[in-house]
């Protein structure tokens, strides 16, 4: 690094953090210098947010050392970290909508400031420092997103912050608002304040960051000066190289069109349309929030979407809820395994039989013997490692939980299987088993829609890839022809 004269405000040494079943951060070392704008990029799940949450005291690190402004950070709470001068501005801003601007800036500190009324004059001074003219008596609910961001920055300044972390601040800003933010960031830098700027948007990194760190899969890939890295290099570092034999050979038995989706419009989605062929694995590449999950939820009837057109084998079908979808031969493994997929307090058996329950019902009564048979069959055929079928599913590893959800659907022999992040947070071995399973499903005549934040997974498993960004399908690729960089460029085409 060239900043040899500058002093590091933040030193992170060999910091690791594991969550059950996944290593979120693996020996991360990083230095942030005073008065520097330091960009951090990486795909979803790279570990950026985990690292920031450790810094702000939301999570505790498992090992390693963090020194901030000369002090070791150990077992810190969010309020302590703010008082030390480390502020974080989250993507979902943390303001109380029903209170005024001034009150929000000094929230919880009215006493120190000399009363609820006294905060306004102090807030005025802070806001003036960043050239912001919002009335401090205004209620926050009346403000635009960019104004709210200004309030958050003023709040950070009120703590005399030496380091301000901004987590994807630009995601909902207009061009003009963004220019204003950049100006403020430069002002802060000139005052000697360091900025960590987390973003998906590579343009922003090149525009105004001085140093950039690329993260991937919980690893810190590299930290470099921005003028010493090319855009393509950065994308390659983010995406990573494919390891041989991490994926089974690609199935290739694509047949007739089975699914035609047209005219999906919501607040986010704009005229989404595509088709899916028999025996095909169709990959969706896009960021979280790009509309990829919303699209499949609309198809599956999980969200109500009016006037959509879904044709199965050429025939128009009406899917208004998940039951309709299931009756039409659709199945969906949802994005969030614990919240949307599993009944954590229930047994493996009940979690597997879940979707087949109507099949097990005769005149309203359940056949428990058949229920046992179903779960035994799926546990065996998918090699789900569980002490018994009666074990609570929350005791299983992420990979085995996911296999149980797959077993739930495979019992119904679905024509179209939607997999939303099917391998998120599960280990390499279980991932490979799930890939083999996907291959078998399409070879048996099923079709799969695959959504994943792991680009190599989509590229290696899919017969065809669609990129989605900002609610629009922006491109269609043959993963054998197109390069990862080409595809990522389309996925980032805002």
């Amino acid at each position, binding site marked *: 690094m060239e900043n040899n004269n500058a002093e590091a405000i933040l030193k992170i040494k060999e910091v690791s953090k594991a969550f059950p079943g996944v290593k979120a951060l693996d020996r991360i070392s990083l230095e942030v210098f005073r008065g520097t704008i330091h960009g951090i990029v990486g795909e979803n799940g790279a570990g950026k947010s985990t690292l920031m949450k450790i810094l702000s005291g939301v999570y505790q690190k498992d090992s390693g050392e963090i020194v901030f402004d000369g002090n070791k950070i150990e077992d810190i709470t969010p309020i302590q970290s703010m008082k030390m001068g480390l502020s974080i501005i989250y993507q979902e801003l943390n303001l109380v909508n029903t209170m005024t601007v001034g009150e929000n800036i000094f929230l919880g500190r009215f006493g120190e400031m000399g009363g609820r009324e006294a905060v306004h004059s102090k807030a005025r001074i802070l806001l003036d420092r960043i050239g912001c003219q919002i009335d401090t008596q205004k209620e926050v609910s009346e403000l635009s997103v960019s104004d709210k961001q200004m309030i958050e920055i003023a709040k950070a300044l009120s703590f005399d912050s030496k380091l301000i972390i901004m987590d994807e601040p630009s995601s909902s800003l207009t061009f003009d608002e963004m220019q204003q933010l950049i100006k403020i960031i430069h002002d802060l830098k000139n005052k000697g304040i360091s900025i960590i700027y987390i973003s998906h948007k590579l343009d922003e990194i090149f525009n105004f960051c001085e140093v950039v760190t690329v993260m991937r899969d919980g690893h810190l890939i590299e930290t470099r000066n921005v003028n010493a890295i090319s855009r393509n290099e950065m994308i390659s570092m983010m995406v990573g190289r494919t390891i041989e034999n991490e994926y089974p050979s690609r199935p290739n038995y694509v047949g007739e069109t089975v699914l035609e989706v047209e005219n999906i419009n919501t607040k986010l989605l704009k005229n989404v349309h595509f088709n899916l062929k028999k025996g095909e694995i169709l990959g969706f590449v896009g960021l979280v929030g790009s509309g990829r999950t919303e699209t499949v939820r609309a198809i599956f009837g999980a969200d109500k979407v009016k006037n959509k057109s879904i044709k199965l084998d050429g025939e128009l079908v009406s899917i208004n809820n998940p039951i309709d979808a299931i009756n039409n031969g659709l199945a969906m493994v949802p994005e969030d395994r614990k919240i*949307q997929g599993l*009944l*954590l307090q*229930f047994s493996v058996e009940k979690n597997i039989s*879940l*979707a087949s329950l109507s099949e097990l019902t005769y005149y309203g009564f359940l056949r428990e013997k058949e229920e046992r048979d179903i779960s035994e069959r799926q546990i065996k055929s998918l090699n789900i490692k569980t002490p018994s079928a009666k074990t609570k599913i929350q005791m299983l590893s992420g990979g085995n939980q996911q296999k149980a959800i797959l077993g739930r659907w495979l019992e119904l022999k679905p024509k179209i299987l939607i997999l939303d992040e099917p391998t998120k947070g599960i280990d390499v071995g279980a991932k490979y088993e799930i890939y083999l399973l996907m291959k078998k499903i399409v070879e048996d005549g099923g079709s799969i829609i695959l959504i994943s934040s792991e680009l190599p997974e989509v590229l290696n498993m899919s017969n065809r890839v669609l990129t989605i960004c900002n609610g629009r399908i922006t491109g269609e690729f043959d993963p054998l022809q197109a390069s990862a960089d080409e595809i990522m460029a389309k996925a980032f085409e805002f």
Partner: protein
Amino acid sequence: MDKKITTQSIITFTKNNLIIVGIFILAIITSFVEPNFLTVGNLQNVMRQFGPLIMVSLGMTFIIMGGMIDLSVGGIISLVAVVTISLIDPIGQAAALMVGVTIGLICGLLNSFLILKGGALKQAEALFLTYGMSVVFTAVALIYTGAAPVFMSYSKTDFSIFTAIGEGFIGPASTSFIIFLVCLLILYIIESRTHIGRSICLTGGNMIAARLAGIPTEKTIIFIYAVSGVMAAIGAVVLASRVTIASPLMGKGYETQAILAVVVGGTALTGGKGSVLRTVIGTLLIILMSNCLNLLGVTTYIQYMLRGAILILAIWLDNRKQYSEGN
């Protein structure tokens, strides 16, 4: 598993069933201090109080297992009681009974309709919504009666269904006890053997996941509120038959008692697991407790306080248990 009773196993049982053990100890103390406790008269008294509350609690069990809450049962009891009793003379006993139960059903369906249409699918939202409905049902009862109590009359026939429910016996068992057994059996079969019973648990366990896996969660919510409404109506009839009078405020307090009975029985307030059988124990304990405290001369107001404290304790214990299971 080791079946021997050791000090350790007693401690573990006590820890897991703190409230049950506590009320048991209270009963033992009472039987020593107050010899009247173990008399036939007093135990019959306990059973009489058991009648109305257990009906409401059984319905509430399904509601809570389904992850919801129903505070409107107090209002339903008041409304059903006054309407049923007032209709005995004009339309006859059997017809009045049927109208009463139908009103309970309609009230329950109305609750579920408002919950589904209003999107009040969180327990807290259902809590406020059904509280509001309770006020509405009570108000209708007050308007209907002009705020005056309605007396039961025996003008037309010698034999009265209502006296039979209130005071009659079939063999050694009181009629209301037989009604309770029939309801318990039906609800237990629904709970343990049927699709809808499983759907209740699944909906309470994780409504989002259950819906995405094709469980008819909306129908399930309609079902549990309908059952709760009908059971509250049956409870109202049992209560009115025993006291031979119906007042437009008579259901007040039943909702908290029923929730208390369900939770003390061990059905998790967070939904997903529980049983009507547990609720039977819970209801017995609640009534036993208030009986003991009455005999010991503890005033009603202190009893209210104790009930509240026990509810808080039960929720706290359950959360602690779930937390330790979660790890």
